[in-house]
C-alpha cells in the first residue's frame, strides 16, 4: 500500500536489538519516525544500517560498510525512498555492492576475479552474519517442544 508519509510513532522500541544490530544512535523525529542506526560485524567489516520505524512500517534509509581496522568507508549504499526494511533486503544490497566493488578494484589493479565465486563467498558470509543466530534460535525452540 502506498501512502503519504509520515507515520506517527511514540514508542521507542528496541528495533535494532530485535534485528540483531548493536544500537549506535537513535532519534525520534517530530514526524514520529524513530530513526535508529545499528551496526553488525562481518569478518573485519562493519555494516551500519539506518532504519526508520513508524507505526505498521519500518523503512530502510541507508547502509554504510566500513573497514573495522581503520574505519575507512568501503561502501555507501543509497537506498531509494519507501523501501521496507528486512534483513534479506540488506543482504541483497550489501552483497551486490561488495561484489561490484571487488570486481572494479580488481579490474583497476589488473587482476582477474571470478565474479560468481566471489558472489557465492560473500553471500555465505552475509548469510552467516545475518541469519546464523536465527537458525540456532529456531532449533532451540523446536528442540524444547519436541519437534526435533
Amino acid at each position, binding site marked *: 500500500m502506498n501512502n503519504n508519509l509520515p507515520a506517527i510513532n511514540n514508542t521507542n522500541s528496541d528495533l535494532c536489538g530485535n534485528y540483531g544490530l548493536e544500537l549506535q544512535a537513535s532519534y525520534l523525529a517530530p514526524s514520529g519516525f524513530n530513526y535508529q542506526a545499528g551496526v553488525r560485524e562481518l569478518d573485519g567489516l562493519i555494516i551500519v544500517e539506518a532504519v526508520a520505524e513508524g507505526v505498521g512500517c519500518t523503512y530502510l534509509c541507508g547502509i554504510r560498510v566500513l573497514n573495522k581496522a581503520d574505519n575507512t568507508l568501503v561502501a555507501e549504499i543509497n537506498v531509494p525512498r519507501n523501501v521496507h526494511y528486512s534483513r534479506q533486503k540488506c543482504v541483497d544490497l550489501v552483497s551486490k555492492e561488495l561484489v561490484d566493488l571487488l570486481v572494479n578494484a580488481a579490474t583497476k589493479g589488473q587482476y582477474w576475479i571470478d565474479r560468481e565465486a566471489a558472489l557465492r563467498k560473500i553471500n555465505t558470509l552475509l548469510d552467516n552474519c545475518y541469519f546464523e543466530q*536465527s537458525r540456532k534460535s529456531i532449533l532451540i*525452540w523446536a528442540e524444547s517442544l519436541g519437534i526435533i
Partner: protein
Amino acid sequence: MQNKEIQLFQQVGIAKAGNYNYSEIANSFNSTGYTSLAGNTYFNSIWFVEGLAVLADIGIGHTWTFLNGLKIVNIQDKKLVFDSSYHCRYYSKHAVISTVVEKVTSLILESAAKGGLCLNPLHVEQKVRSIIVNGFAKDQRYMLNYNTQKFLKA
C-alpha cells in the same frame, strides 16, 4: 497488564507495552493506530504462541487491509527468527498463520540440514502447524500469561 507481562513485550522488542491493547474481536494485542493523510490506518498486531511472538505490520486502506510486514521472535532468547516485508499483500489472519507455519517449518528444516541433521518435513510441518494453530486459537491474554510464567520466571 501486569509488570511481568509488560516485561514480556520488552523481551520481544517493544519498549512501551502500554500502547498495546487486547482486542477481543481480533484476539490479538494491537498498537494504537495512525491514520495517514491518504486515509490509510496503520497499526501493529501481536500474537503469542508457545515460545514465539508473531508481530505483524498492518495497514487498512479504503477497501482492503494489507499485511506490510511480519516478524517472528523467540521469546526465550529474544532472537528474531524471521522477518519479511510485503508489498500489496492482502491481510487475513489465516494468511498470517499459514505464513508463520510455512516459514518456521522451512527455517527448522534449513537449519537442521546445515547442521547435518535430516528431518522428515511432513512430521515437522504437522507439529509446527499444531503449535501455531493452537496458539492463535487460544485467548491471547492466556497465551501472554502462559509465556510470561514460562519464560520470565526470575
